[in-house]
């Protein structure tokens, strides 16, 4: 029973940790499959977390907040697309810019709306993302321990399915991947490379924003300066780890979340492991897994290369 309880806790916590990463990672999957490197996920996630918490607070509706988080980051995604697609920018540089702009704007606006504070006001529980399954699952059972999650968790995993389906089973997905692999080939067949890249990069912002929103509206109940601190980069790593595939990213996020959950679990047992070593474990684990099991990851062939029509 105790074993099952522990397992329930670890799985449940894994899901909680993985969710914001997963949304953001899927954002990365979208953008990079269309051939645009998005290192600005961190900035987008931060801005999304802020916008979600703010709109959530003022509207009292978590769904509006969640959407606003996506839209706000979608705006940053638009900027990134503008630079990378229209102006053929160096995509890494533009991403770095987003990483300064996102948090900068978030904190600046936060001070404007929240009385000089770099954090938003706390949301009461009824203004947070709901837990629909809370009451359906019987109290104290294993299933409940695992699945007693915010709705955002289920949304993230549904999104994995949707994006997998989109990329590998639909017309649009075929075109997205074609544009990421060989934009010129797609162009010669009348596929509008710019439009598809715009769409994907903006969507990548939207998903990163959802990732941020699932932090500020579900895991926590407000936005503050260090809420995201590095998760966007972890999500980026997870996407590479997952070989640029939605299901791969999901596995990577789960592994990462599980490492975090294990950290907490071990910290709660009597084992005298220094706190710092527990905290660094997930990162070491990720490196070890990359060394041993994954091998060389292959990005979409044209990932990171601007497509310039007239200079072939």
């Amino acid at each position, binding site marked *: 029973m105790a074993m099952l309880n522990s397992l329930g806790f670890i799985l449940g916590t894994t899901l909680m940790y993985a969710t914001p990463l997963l949304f953001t990672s899927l954002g990365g999957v979208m953008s990079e499959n269309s051939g645009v490197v998005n*290192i600005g996920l961190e*900035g987008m996630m931060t801005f999304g977390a802020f916008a979600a918490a703010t709109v959530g607070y003022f509207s009292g509706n978590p769904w509006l907040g969640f959407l606003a988080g996506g839209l706000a980051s979608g705006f940053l995604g638009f*900027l990134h697309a503008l*630079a990378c697609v229209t*102006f*053929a*920018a*160096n*995509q*890494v*540089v*533009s991403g*770095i*810019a*987003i*990483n*300064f*702009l*996102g*948090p*900068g*704007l978030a*904190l*600046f606006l936060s*001070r*404007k709306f929240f009385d*000089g504070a*770099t954090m938003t006001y706390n949301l009461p529980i009824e203004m947070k993302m709901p837990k629909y399954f809370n009451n359906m699952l019987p109290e104290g059972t294993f299933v409940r321990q695992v699945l007693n999650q915010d709705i955002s968790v289920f949304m993230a995993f549904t999104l994995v399915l949707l994006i997998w389906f989109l990329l590998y089973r639909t017309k649009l997905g075929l075109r997205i991947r074609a544009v990421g692999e060989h934009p010129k080939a797609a162009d010669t067949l009348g596929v509008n490379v710019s439009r598809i890249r715009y769409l994907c990069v903006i969507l990548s912002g939207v998903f990163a924003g959802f990732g941020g929103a699932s932090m500020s509206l579900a895991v926590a109940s407000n936005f503050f300066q*260090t809420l995201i*601190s*590095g998760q966007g*980069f*972890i999500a*980026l*790593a997870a996407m*590479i*780890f997952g070989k640029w595939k939605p299901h791969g990213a999901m596995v990577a996020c789960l592994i990462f979340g599980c490492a975090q959950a294990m950290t907490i679990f071990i910290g709660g047992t009597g084992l005298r492991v*220094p706190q*710092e*070593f527990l*905290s*660094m474990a997930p*990162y*070491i684990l*990720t*490196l070890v897994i*990359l*060394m041993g099991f994954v*091998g*060389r*990851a292959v990005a979409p062939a044209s990932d990171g290369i601007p497509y310039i029509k007239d200079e072939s």
Partner: protein
Amino acid sequence: MGKFIKRLFSGTIGVTIFSIVIAFIMGGAILLLAGYNPVQVYMVMIEGVFGKPKNMAWSVIKATPLIITGLSVAFAFRTGLFNIGAEGQFIVGSTVAALFGYYLHLPPLIHIPLVFVGGAFAGGCWGSIAGYLKARFGIHEVISTIMLNWIALYGHNYVVGMPGFARRTNISCDIQDSACITLFKNWKFSEVGRTWFGAHPILRDIFKTPLNSGFLVAVLLVILVWYILNRTTLGYRLRAVGFNKDAAEFGGINVKKSIVLSMFIAGMLGGAAGALQVMGVARNISTLAAMEGYGFDGIAIALIGNNSAFGCLFAGLLFGALKFGGARIQSPPVRAPMEIINIMIGTIVFFIAIPRLIRMIIRWREKRKGDGDA
């Protein structure tokens, strides 16, 4: 002369200057929209940087580690690697410098270089881990350096708390005076020093800051990096690998070794920045709750400096000034959010990313001017 200026502005430097100007305009617009007087804000910033000699000293102090982390990122970029890990290398460098600085008891002439080299070497080793992982396992350096940053952070926190090294909660013991590079560190607190400085208030003001020889080291490193990259066979080899590793391999260059070596050097620079910060400013290390951003600022600096060594020097000074001057805008009379600085930095980098836009504008202007002349 006119031709020279024209060439300057259509080149990379022109793009950079243009981006900085746009950033100030954008920053101003945002401040205006938010209800602040941008002119006043900028005046406070400028006054904050240039108003007093000691403020300039502060800007230089702030700039010192940033110049070097910028160099670290730029060096890696020039050799085809993206070093997001300058942050971690900085942390490792500062940790080892603090340990060497505290536990070793040596005369300053030996101690100072030893601590510096120790920190730099540790940073180098940290960096070369990422290089090795890339060369041996093909792990992208972006992932590995992100992971290594966090590992460095927690390792650092562990060291801070080690019994015997922790002076009090969350803060380690100070390094020995013999490892300190702050100018007149003890003398300025002594009776004689105070009396002398009392008579020379401006110098007193300047040396009140933890002004240290770190900036000189930074300038030397800038020259060294420039020299290595452009004048030595080592630089030639690393750049060849950076530009085109297939051709380099074809030409008989050992690509894997070069990747490790180049991450080692980039890491050494990151570590050196950390060591100098400990030796000159902080004198101890303390528990980090989150990344401090030296490495991430370094990325922006490398980009603004166009990945050239001297570019990093100027971009670093710009950053130092923005950071020190920018912090002043939060106090009266303007009370503006200092995050405007990050927005401005982001804007600079953003426009640097799109030189095409700026070139288009320049071309368009020239064309218009040409039409006007005709």
